[in-house]
């Protein structure tokens, strides 16, 4: 109990210093701001998804009502796909500003559709968002540094240092006590708004605990560094300069270096080549003998070998066959494009161990399902869905089933990825 009571004694003493109280209030304010804007943004996204799901259904039904054959129905009906935000996304908006989390696709070649980027205003994306992950990874270290760097130097400058040591009894107890009191209060100031936000968003307890733990560990790291630096017999301003320099190194310079080196080491095919390849194959098909296209198609779908004869200048099954062959031709490029992104991400996750702020940021995005992996996993669900649509359509075309508008209601429906397991 004496530890707790002396913690409170030190705290009440420290809070009487305006600068310290001011920094703690700033932490509380900025954290609250980040949480409230994060919640608003996610609410916006959810509302947009809700509106789009309705509009998508209405538009598709409208298109289908006018359709007169299977091929035409598939051509004119688009399907909304999306990645719903998780229950923690409000705390780490992550890549949702940069990577598309919604696509509307039809049964034409997918490679021509999936690379479209329906992203937010680029200049806003460039300015960045003040999400909780930013507060915790970038700002919190600076606050720790500002709070702890002149614990001793400040007292030394005020001429109280030796007196304090003498009256505190054990000289080892006083400074750790003050530092702990400050860091614990800072942790509460940062986490309190997060806990409220998590309660409002219904975040799983395990995630809340994990984030809280991460925040504390990160604060402790910077507290240890600041405490160690603060123990040197130098002027407070010199210590502060050094610490801010160290922060700059870990938060900006090292990450920038790793980013540039990773992007140079792991090359990714030019996106333009994927769509150009796909387009050439799709369009060349019109001028090629039809059996060339159908052979390439049957190689992938041997089950339709006996139905692959095309007699008329235009048949839907040939049309969708060359759409599929277009995708097949771009497959290698497209796979290595995604593979490259994944490899870069993997390298970045290893490199993150040299920089705690980056590690925290990436871990939060990972927990929130707003990282590169989640974006790629979403893309996979779109590809799978497109494949299911094709599987639904092909029998209708190749077996020449008579058109039945009512059967259109059996079209596969998109199942969004459940990010909150």
């Amino acid at each position, binding site marked *: 109990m004496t530890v707790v009571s002396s913690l409170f004694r030190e705290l009440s003493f420290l809070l009487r210093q305006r600068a310290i109280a001011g920094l703690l209030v700033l932490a509380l304010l900025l954290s609250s701001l980040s949480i409230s804007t994060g919640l608003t943004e996610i609410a916006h996204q959810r509302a947009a998804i809700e509106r789009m799901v309705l509009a998508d259904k209405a538009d598709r039904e409208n298109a289908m009502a006018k359709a007169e054959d299977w091929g035409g129905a598939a051509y004119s009906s688009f399907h909304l796909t999306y990645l719903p935000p998780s229950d923690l996304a409000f705390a780490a908006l992550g890549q949702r500003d940069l990577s598309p989390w919604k696509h509307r696709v039809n049964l034409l070649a997918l490679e021509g559709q999936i690379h479209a*980027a329906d992203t937010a205003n680029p200049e806003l994306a460039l300015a960045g968002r003040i999400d909780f992950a930013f507060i915790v990874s970038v700002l919190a270290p600076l606050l720790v540094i500002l709070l702890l760097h002149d614990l001793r130097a400040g007292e030394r400058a005020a001429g109280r240092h030796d007196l304090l040591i003498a009256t505190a009894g054990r000289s080892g107890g006083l400074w750790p006590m003050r530092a702990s009191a400050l860091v614990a209060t800072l942790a509460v100031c940062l986490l309190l708004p997060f806990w409220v936000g998590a309660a409002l968003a219904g975040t799983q307890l395990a995630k809340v605990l994990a984030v809280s733990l991460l925040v504390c560990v990160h604060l402790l790291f910077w507290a240890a560094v600041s405490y160690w630096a603060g123990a040197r017999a130098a002027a407070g301003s010199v210590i502060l300069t050094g610490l801010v320099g160290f922060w700059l190194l870990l938060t900006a310079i090292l990450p920038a270096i790793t*980013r540039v080196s990773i992007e140079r080491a792991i090359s990714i095919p030019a996106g333009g080549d994927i769509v150009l390849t796909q387009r050439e194959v799709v369009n060349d098909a019109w001028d090629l003998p039809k059996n060339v296209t159908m052979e390439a198609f049957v190689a992938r779908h041997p089950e339709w070998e006996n139905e692959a004869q095309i007699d008329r200048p235009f048949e839907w099954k040939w049309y969708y066959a060359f759409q599929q062959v277009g995708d097949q031709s771009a497959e290698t490029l497209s796979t290595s494009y995604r593979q490259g992104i994944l490899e870069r991400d993997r390298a970045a996750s290893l490199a993150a161990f040299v920089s705690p702020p980056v590690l925290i940021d990436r871990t939060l995005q990972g927990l929130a399902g707003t990282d590169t992996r989640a974006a790629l996993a979403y893309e996979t669900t779109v590809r799978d869905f497109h494949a299911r649509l094709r599987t639904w359509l092909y029998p209708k075309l190749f077996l020449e089933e008579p058109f039945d508008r009512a059967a259109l209601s059996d079209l596969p429906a998109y199942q969004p990825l459940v990010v909150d397991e």
Partner: protein
Amino acid sequence: MRTILLVAADEWRFWRRSRLAMLALGLLLVLVAASATLTALRVANEAEARALLQSEAEETYRSQPDRHPHRMVHYGHYVFRTPPPLAMIDPGVDPVTGQSIFLEGHRQNAAMFADAKTGATAGQLADMSPAVVLSLFAPLLLIAMGYSVMTRERENGTLGPLLAQGVSPLTLIAGKGLALASVAGLTLLPLVLTAAVAISKGETLAATAVFLGSFSLYLLVWCALIIAVSSLSARRASSLTILVVVWILLVLIVPRIAANVAASVAPAQGKIEADFAVLNELRSMGDGHNAADPAFEQLKANLLLQYDVASVEDLPVNFRGIVAETAEADLTAVLNRFAEERMATEVRQVSLLRSFGWISPALALREASMTSAGTGVEAHHKFLRDAEAVRFDFVQGLNRVHAEQLAYADDIKRSSDPEAERRTRVSSENWKVLEDFHFVPPPSDTRVEGALAPLARLGAWFALLFGLVLFSARGLKL
């Protein structure tokens, strides 16, 4: 004047003896130089690669075989946004916007392939162009070197003797200011060199001058702020703490708050959602693929009257081509209206964001530099409009060919009669009329003009802080 130079030289002597100051200066100079080199190389590579893709796209379009012209409408074309010369220093929105657009009939596609999506995510400050290094981190260097310029003299007790020797407070401050400004000038050196390269690549002198001028003014704002805080603070420690907190607020926090505010005050729909409204409106219009669509009855009647014939078969032009042309024009009018609305929303958001430049000089600088470099949202909008102009031109050119070079009788039988289908293929000579596309940012005059508002914000900051410095000088009487 001599005294001012002496004071400045003395400050430099102090810095040269301080290992910390020299380390910080060296680090930042290496950072600016490295980032300038890497960014310049990357942007030059990108420019070359995209120009190559552009000419390849034009080449393949022009070398397509004889075809039905409407096939070429769907074959489509690609345009690429090549970065302007000053993007070597400030790439602006380039990495977060798609760099190519697929142009085809009946649709306005979104730009594809943003670099940021393929990048290795390494925290929130890993993107370091020279512009970012200068706007975010150069102020930190100036703070590290300058926080004690005045407080040191006061704390060491050298201020009194200096003033007693007849050095006026203003001369002292001017000397210290000159020393600090010379540090700022040093960090700008790599930028000046890169800007010279940009001029050699065709950038105008005026835009480059405004571009560099905005960086200089921004750093001068920081010099003034540092001197003011340093003169007004009693102790070194408090002067440094205040400056670091101010830096955090002005550089890290306010720009992001501004982005949050802009996004929530002027919310924008995504393209997919906005497109539902477009689809709704288009549904009431005729489908240009279907000449029998009742929406074209009036057009048909007018044509029959104009050429004084009884049926579409007797028209001297291909009715299907005319329908395609009319439908495309009507549809494009709708698409453009929605596209302009979307861009207007983005401009509203951005001007809201930029108005925070009154509060954060870092935001004002970003606006000035992106606008003068032609890498801001306006330049991207120009790319979208230019791309749309190319799209409309080539599609309507093909529709004209469709109307004038194809027999209606063949056209309606081409899906069932292979011979008629063969006759509907027009000569590939028609594809050769496609014009070369090379994206250029808004003209230099427009960019310079656009940069005046943010420059005025920086100017206001400087004037305010200069006043504060003069005010603080009065307090230096001892």
